[in-house]
């Protein structure tokens, strides 16, 4: 099997590198060889969110150059993978678009890759207790990531309890989370409230940005279960 190129994402690289290593351990547990293309930076999504398509285009071309040598690209972020799928073809023209579409066709969110491509559900990890899943927006709506994280958690022995409005945005929203901080905080409170009502010990998502936003709110006093990346939770349960 050809190696999997990890697109670790800038947020994980700079803020939660452990999540990157958790993703690597899961991929290795599934029998993959993981490589880390050193030239990678950011997918460019913040620029789209900010209305700066030229900046996004520059980073899109960089991403394509870095990742096109690889058969498979996996990111521990639905949103960043969705950026490649949904926005790159919009942003780029001509040969660049064709190259981007070709890379996009081989780019996956982590849980999606494990479950839908490799057909793996039980990676040998054990997760005790009750968890609830927040369906992060772009993974859900652009990539169709809905069942995969639940399947992996259930196979690891966790009890997955559905919260009300699991598919409603947590309020992060890229530049929205900065420009409309008060509103973003209110939406995070709603999300944490729904998650808390399930009695789950953590709220699991496949996007670190959403989780950091929720955690940032929690540290200001909003009560709710611990926002936890799927990779971190599963990798902690590996033997």
């Amino acid at each position, binding site marked *: 099997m050809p190696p999997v190129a990890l697109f670790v994402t800038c947020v994980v690289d700079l803020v939660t590198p452990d999540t990157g290593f958790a993703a690597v351990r899961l991929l290795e547990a599934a029998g993959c060889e993981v490589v880390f293309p050193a030239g990678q930076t950011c997918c460019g999504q913040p620029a789209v969110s900010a209305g700066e398509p030229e900046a996004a285009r520059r980073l899109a071309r960089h991403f394509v150059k870095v990742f096109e040598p690889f058969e498979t690209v996996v990111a521990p972020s639905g949103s960043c993978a969705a950026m490649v799928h949904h926005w790159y073809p919009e942003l780029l023209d001509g040969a660049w678009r064709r190259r981007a579409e070709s890379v996009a066709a081989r780019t996956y969110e982590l849980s999606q890759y494990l479950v839908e491509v490799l057909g793996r559900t039980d990676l040998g990890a054990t997760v005790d207790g009750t968890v609830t899943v927040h369906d992060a*927006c772009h993974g859900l*709506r652009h990539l169709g990531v809905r069942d995969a994280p639940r399947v992996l958690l259930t196979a690891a022995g966790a009890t997955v309890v559905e919260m009300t409005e699991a598919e409603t945005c947590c309020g992060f929203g890229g530049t929205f989370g900065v420009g*409309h901080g008060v509103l973003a905080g209110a939406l995070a409170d709603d999300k944490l409230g729904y998650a808390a009502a399930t009695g789950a010990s953590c709220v699991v998502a496949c996007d670190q940005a959403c989780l950091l936003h929720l955690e940032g709110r929690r540290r200001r006093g909003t009560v709710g279960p611990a926002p936890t990346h799927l990779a971190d939770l599963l990798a902690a349960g590996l033997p």
Partner: protein
Amino acid sequence: MAHGLATPGRTFRDRAARALDDSGLQRALRNLDVRLGTAAEVERDMRPVKDRAASIRRETLADLDGWLERLEAALTARGVTVHRCATPAAARAVVASIAREVGAHVVVKSKSMATEEIDLAEALEAVGFDAVETDLGEYVVQVAGERPSHIITPVIHKTLDQIAAVLSEEAEESLPVDRGALTDWVRTHLRERFLEAGLGVTGANFAVAETGTLVIVTNEGNGRFCTALPRVHVAVVPVEKVIPRFADLATLLPVLTRSATGQRLSNYVSMISGPRRAGEQDGPEELHVVLLDHGRRRLIGTPYEAMLACIRCGACLNVCPVYRRVGGHAYDSVYPGPMGEVLTPLLSAGLSGRDLPAASTLCGACTEACPVEIPLADLIARLRADLRSPDPVEADARRPHARRSGFGAWALVWSSPRGYRASTIVTRLLGAGVAPARAVRWRRRLLGVGGWTATRDVPVPARRRFRDQWSTRS
């Protein structure tokens, strides 16, 4: 869009903050039904119908001017007077002049976003007519001196207590906080107005080019009264309401009402093909159609053409996490929510609603809910870029942001691995050695994240990046 009744607060951010603090509003907004008509089994049955609806809308927009010519010819053949109006001012003038000719003091209106868009009721009031909104929710909003906050349920921003208070003041008696009693009072009160009105004003949900038929969907029956009793009927019809064929209604009607209210079909559907005919006892003797452009036709052929497919069902409002938290008035536009974030700057050529596209998390719930497949979230993102120009429809792609955002420099640096590594040393330092208070201040300054830190703790950068750890991984 400019209108007389401004909502307090200069920006969306101000108004949203106010809305979050308004406990009555927050209570009222809980009544909004996010899953209206989108139960899984309904969605499965409706999917192919929605696909057909989207394709009919695309077909119409592909030859909008052609369908409009056919519509105008069919209406004229039925004895309808057609007025093509390019601007709200022209449309207001036409309706006011018709009202003067009718000599009617009382004008009854049914709910219509097009008439809201052109401020018709206020314009008629200003020249001495008594223009009465007759949809229950619109009536409450009018009596309260407010604006609708939702394109389908105009008074969703008020609780029953608040509505009872508004109506009690109008009635000059204390009405009970009871749906039935309040409804009865409005029924009796507005029935008199229907009977004395000389002019009925409506919008139209669809205008059939093939037959010259105006289609109006309502639940209350006020639209029926407006088109049955007054001597003259004026319908204000934005150009994109045209549909090609009578048979298309089999697709578009259920799609509209499912998405708007969850109903299989609205309670009443009026299909009006011309004025009263010989021997008929009621119906308007004169029927006028104001075909309103107001910046719509120029969207054809632009990336925003798809927005003209909108059938004003309100589904995108109901699913929008932002709309549901702040309500419609925070948008300070006739059109709130995701569709309003797109339409407001487009129809006003960038004069209004410039900060609305930023009022979205780009979560895509609107795109998913839209029954006619308008990529609302994508259009919102695109507008953020195009609003760097004064008029987003004629945006200059090379135009930089008025306020230098630094994204260009950022992309330049981050499109090289070396630049990325060098620049992120700063964040590592912030995460490591620097004293916390100073670190926070610096982070704010460097990352421009003051809006973040006001409500959430900023994540602390790791001491060692993933890439540094990877290179030393055994």
